[in-house]
């Protein structure tokens, strides 16, 4: 809720602040709400180390990040996906990886689902776990709300349109997804691998399914084997300002790996 309130405030302030920026020690980042909490932590660290630098972080979705970077409304845009072919005028800097894992209730005996089975379940062609080798239990399909980049990645990977999905529950953030699946033995959902792995480790009643033969682990996302993964990018148009470039280098440095892991994302590069 707090996040939503912040977003609304950000929207309200947006029009006011638009005029006053572009001084040399101020940096403005907007975009993906997946990336924003991570960048916020990095920005705090960076401000502490560099006196006088002020970094504003606002959310509004990956598309807004791309738009704002393109129009110069933000120094850096945040996008939790790869750039589309129509966005090649921007340059992405990957700061971390995030994987999306399919989660089931822990008590569900199903241990793997093929891509075709998952597609059929989400389209409503398979209604019961019995049909995929599980118990006689109706399937509860958990989907994400429109506009979330997790949904976009999921749809793209399974070549689905959102209107084809027959969802029983639509959720907002990862935590809501995990609580929904943990409370329903017949549920199937998808959330960030890092979050799911953490919750699984804490004993929450969920389990992750492997994808394409690879277990949904942070390690497999990092080495690039896990198929359903996405980069978290900072995007800029043209030549970034010296401060923006310094911040991007900082966000890609080893110094922030602790922050990345603390939010269950995966640092880029060698283990």
């Amino acid at each position, binding site marked *: *809720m707090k996040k939503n309130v912040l*977003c609304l405030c950000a929207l309200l302030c947006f029009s006011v602040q638009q005029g006053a920026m572009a001084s040399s020690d101020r940096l403005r980042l907007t975009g993906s709400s997946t990336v924003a909490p991570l960048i916020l932590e990095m920005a705090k660290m960076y401000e502490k180390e560099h006196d006088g630098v002020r970094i504003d972080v606002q*959310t509004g*979705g990956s598309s807004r990040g791309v738009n704002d970077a393109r129009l110069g409304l933000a120094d850096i845009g945040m996008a939790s996906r790869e750039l589309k072919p129509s966005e090649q005028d921007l340059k992405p800097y990957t700061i971390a990886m995030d994987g999306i894992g399919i989660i089931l209730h822990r008590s569900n005996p199903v241990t793997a689902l093929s891509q075709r089975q998952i597609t059929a379940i989400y389209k409503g062609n398979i209604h019961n776990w019995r049909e995929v080798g599980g118990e006689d239990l109706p399937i509860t399909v958990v989907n994400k709300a*429109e506009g979330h*980049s997790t949904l976009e990645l999921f749809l793209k990977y399974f070549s689905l349109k959102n209107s084809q999905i027959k969802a029983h*529950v639509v959720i*907002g953030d990862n935590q809501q997804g995990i609580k929904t699946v943990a409370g329903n033995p017949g549920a199937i959902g998808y959330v960030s691998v890092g979050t799911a792995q953490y919750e699984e480790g804490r004993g929450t009643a969920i389990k992750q399914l492997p994808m394409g033969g690879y277990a949904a682990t942070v390690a497999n996302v990092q080495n690039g084997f896990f198929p359903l993964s996405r980069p978290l990018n900072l995007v800029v148009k043209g030549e970034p300002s010296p401060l923006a470039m310094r911040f991007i280098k900082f966000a890609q440095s080893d110094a922030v790996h602790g922050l990345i892991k603390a939010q269950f994302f995966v640092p880029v590069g060698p283990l």
Partner: protein
Amino acid sequence: MLNKHIDKPVSVLLMSIAVLCGLILLLVLSFLVKEAWPAINDGAWRSFLVDDAWYPLEGLFGISPMILASLAMTVGAILLALPLGVSSAIFLVFYAPAPVGSVYRLMLNLLAGIPSVIYGLWGLTKLVPLIVQWQAPGVSLLAAILVLTLMILPTVALTSAAALTAVPQELIAGAAALGLTRKSQILLVLIPAAKTGIISGVLLAVARALGETMAVLMVAGNVVQNPTSLFAPVRALTANIALEMAYATGTHRAGLFASGLLLTLLVLLLAWLASRLRSQAQRG
């Protein structure tokens, strides 16, 4: 004469503060209209009613299932909360021994003060798993109605209690003098006399239920479809805004503002009804 001189600056100050508060409402409304404009001008608003589904990224903007869902939740919650709340109020005012009554009143006040997100969390982790055992997927219109009932029950109970307490003593004395039993006094004299107060409390509760976002978002399932069954997941207008606003751009965003505008107008209508009722009661 002297009093008037002292009063003047005070009344000017108070008036400007009041005008300022009124202006804020106007500002909010005009902001909503401005942001929603791309979605409602030039007959674009028709797609809200005509489109049969809500897939803003695919250009479909049908919000009628969400309006119906919001109304169904609210009506359901009121149907449960009204008898429970009025009975609590009667117990509180007429039957409860003083110590029990004051503890009960305290509990109702606490219930009214619990943040809605807590109700939502409770609903999602305790109530929904219970409903799942009965009928999947658990998150449903029913779960939303039950959580909303809990949330508005204290409002209904406390306003009804206040209305019952405010009934003139002469009426009670008169009823007693006519030899009416306690039961008949309450049913035939007191409740009709307190009717307006109870109804305006209900309208307040309706406004709260319609505007509730977080708890509903967590337990209702948020699938955009007509509320055809108690066990079907549905999405309320408020939940729709909260779910998608952070990610929406362009007409999608304008569509969300338009649904916010609609919701505001509905709540304003209710507030107006409540105030009309109250002034009618004062005159009558």
